C-alpha cells in the first residue's frame, strides 16, 4: 500500500484564504475606525458587534451543538448583574468586573446544564426558558442591586473606567464618547475572539464530533465520541462568553433591571432571528443576519408597533421561503464558503471534490 502515502487532508480553499485576508483587513480597519467616524456610528457598531457575538454563540449552541436554547438571556443577565455587583458592591473597575460576568455565567451554567441536559428537543428549549425565568425572579429579589427596580452604574465608576482617560486624550473626545470607544473596542475583541474561536473549534476534532452528534447521536457514541462531554463543553463555553457579552452590553448601557437584563426578546428572540435569517449552522449566517437585522431595525424603528409587526412577518416569510437563511440561499447558488471547514481527502482515485 505504499502508493497511499500520497493521500493528504486539506481544508484550504481559495475563497477561504481570500476571506481570511479580508477579515484581517476588516479587523484592522475596525481598530482604527474611532478616529474617523462619529460617535453614533461607533454605537451602532457596538450594538452590531455585541448582537453578532450573541448570535455566533447561539449558533454554536443550536446550529452546531443541536442545543436549541431559548434561555440565553439568563447568561446575559447574570453576567451583567455580576459586573454591576463587582462595581457597586466590591468597587472593582468596570473593565475587570466584566470578567466577573463570565465567572458568574459559568457558575450558573453548571447546574443549568445538569438539569437541561436531561431534556430533549422542545423540552430542552422550554427548560432553558424556565431556568432563565427563575434566575430573573431570583435576581429581582436581590434588593441591594435594586430588586425588580434595577440600578445604575454610579457616576464615579463610569467616570473612572480603565483606559477612558487615555482614549479621551488620544481622540480628544468627551468622556461619554471615550467610554463608547472603549466599549466598542472590547466588543470588537470579543466578537473576533468568539468568531475566531468557533472557527478554530470547527476545524479541530471538536468540529467533527459536533457534526457527528448532530447527525446521529447513537452512532457518534459508537465511534467513541463522548456526546455528553461535548454538549457540556459547548454549553459552558457559550455560557461564559454570553455572560461576558452581557456584562459588556450593560457596561455601555450603565443601567440595569431584571426585565432588561433577562429580556427574552432582546437577548434571545432577536438573536435567534439574526441566526435563522442569516443561515443557521454556518459562521457566515449570523454575520449576514446581523447586517440584515440592523438595516431593518434602523429602517423601521420609528414606526412604533408597525415595526414589530413587520419584523414578525418578515421572520415568518424568511422561514417560509428561505428556511436555510439568506446565506444558505447564497452558498447553495454559488457554492461559496468564506469559512471552509470541510476536510477533503486529496490523492489518486478520488472523484473531484465537488
Amino acid at each position, binding site marked *: 500500500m505504499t502508493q497511499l502515502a500520497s493521500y493528504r487532508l486539506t481544508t484550504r480553499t481559495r475563497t477561504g484564504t481570500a476571506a481570511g485576508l479580508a477579515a484581517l483587513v476588516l479587523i484592522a480597519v475596525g481598530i482604527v475606525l474611532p478616529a474617523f467616524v462619529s460617535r453614533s456610528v461607533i454605537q451602532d457598531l457596538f450594538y452590531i458587534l455585541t448582537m453578532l457575538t450573541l448570535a455566533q454563540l447561539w449558533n454554536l449552541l443550536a446550529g452546531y451543538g443541536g442545543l436549541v436554547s431559548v434561555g440565553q438571556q439568563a447568561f446575559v443577565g447574570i453576567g451583567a448583574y455580576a459586573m454591576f455587583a463587582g462595581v457597586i458592591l466590591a468597587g472593582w473597575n468596570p473593565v475587570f468586573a466584566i470578567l466577573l460576568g463570565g465567572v458568574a455565567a459559568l457558575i450558573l451554567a453548571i447546574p443549568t446544564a445538569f438539569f437541561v441536559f436531561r431534556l430533549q428537543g422542545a423540552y430542552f428549549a422550554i427548560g432553558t426558558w424556565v431556568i432563565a425565568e427563575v434566575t430573573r425572579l431570583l435576581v429581582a429579589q436581590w434588593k441591594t442591586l435594586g430588586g425588580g427596580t434595577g440600578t445604575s452604574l454610579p457616576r464615579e465608576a463610569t467616570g473612572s473606567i480603565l483606559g477612558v482617560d487615555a482614549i479621551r486624550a488620544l481622540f480628544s473626545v468627551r468622556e461619554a464618547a471615550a467610554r463608547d470607544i472603549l466599549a466598542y473596542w472590547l466588543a470588537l475583541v470579543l466578537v473576533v475572539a468568539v468568531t475566531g474561536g468557533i472557527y478554530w473549534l470547527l476545524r479541530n476534532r471538536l468540529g467533527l464530533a459536533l457534526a457527528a452528534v448532530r447527525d446521529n447521536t447513537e452512532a457518534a457514541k459508537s465511534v467513541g465520541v463522548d456526546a455528553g462531554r461535548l454538549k457540556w463543553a459547548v454549553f459552558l463555553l457559550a455560557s461564559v462568553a454570553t455572560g461576558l457579552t452581557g456584562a459588556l452590553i450593560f457596561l455601555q448601557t450603565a443601567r440595569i433591571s431584571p426585565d432588561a437584563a433577562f429580556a427574552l426578546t432582546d437577548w434571545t428572540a432577536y438573536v435567534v432571528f439574526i441566526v435563522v435569517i442569516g443561515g443557521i449552522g454556518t459562521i457566515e449566517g449570523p454575520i449576514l443576519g446581523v447586517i440584515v437585522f440592523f438595516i431593518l431595525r434602523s429602517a423601521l424603528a420609528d414606526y412604533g*408597533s408597525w415595526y414589530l409587526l413587520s419584523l414578525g412577518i418578515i421572520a*415568518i416569510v424568511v422561514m417560509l421561503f428561505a428556511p436555510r437563511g439568506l446565506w444558505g440561499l447564497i452558498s447553495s447558488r454559488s457554492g461559496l464558503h468564506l469559512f471552509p471547514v470541510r476536510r477533503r481527502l486529496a490523492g489518486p482515485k478520488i472523484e473531484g471534490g465537488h
Partner: protein
Amino acid sequence: MILVDTLVQGILLGGLYALFAAGLSLVFGIMRLVNLAHGDLIVFAAYLVLLGVSLLGLSPFVAALLAAPIMFVLGWLLQSAVLNRVLGKDILPPLLVTFGLSIAIQNGLLEAFSADSRRIPAGALEGASINLGIVTVGVMPLLTFASAIAVIVALNAIFYQTALGRAFRATSDDTVTAGLMGIEPKRIFAIATGLAMVVVTVAALYLGMRANFDPSVGPARLLYAFEAVIIGGLGSLWGTLAGGIIIGVAQTFGAAINPEWQILAGHIAFLLVLLVKPRGLFPRAVD
C-alpha cells in the same frame, strides 16, 4: 383554615392553567409544534369574545360560542397556509415562525385595540362566591375548573375513541406513512390546530372574565401552559391537567410564604418534577 384555602385556591388556579395548556398540549402532542404564539392567540380570542359582547351585546358565553368556529377556521388557515410549510424534524423553523406570529399578533392587537386593559364583563358572576364552610370559593374559578375538566374529557374521547384521534396519533408518528393510509397529514394538522383554537376560545373566555387583559399579556400565560404540558407528559391530556394543578398549587403555597415566591414556586415545582421525571409524569410509551 388558611392551609386548606390555599390548597383549594391553588387547585382552582390550576384549572385555569390547564385550560391555557390544553390546546397547546394537543398541538404539541400531535405535531411537536412549539407554538410560541399560543398565549397571544388566547388574547386574540379574548378580544374576539369581547367584540361579541360589546358590539353585539351578547352574553360572554354566547359570544364565545360564536367566536369558537371563527377561531377554528383561523386555526385551520394558519396551519394550512403557514405552519404546515415549516413543520419538520427541526423544531427551529416553527419556533421562529410562531415567535414572529407572536410579535405580529401582539402588535396587530395593539394597533387595533390600543394598550388599554380590557375585560369581558360577566356581570354578577364576577364577584359571586359559594361558602363551603371551610373555604369560600368563587363561582368563576369553579366554572373555570369544571370547563377544564370538560375540555380534557372531550379531547381525550376524540383522541382515543375516534378514527380521527387514531389519525391524529398516526400522523404524529409518521406523516409519510400516514399518507399511504389515505390520511392527508396537512389536513389532520389543520383540523388539530382548528380544534386547539376552539379550546383557546374557551381559555380566552375565562382569561377575559377573570382578569384584565391587554395585547401584551400572552407570553406570561404561555410559559405556565408549557410547564403544565411538559409536567404532564407529551400527549397526555390528563397529565396536562395534573401539570396545571401542580403549578397552581405551588404558586399559591409559594405566595403564602411570600408573594415574591409565588411565580418562582411554580417554576421550581416544574423543575423538580422534571428532575425526577424528565419526560413528565405520564409520558407516552414512545416519543
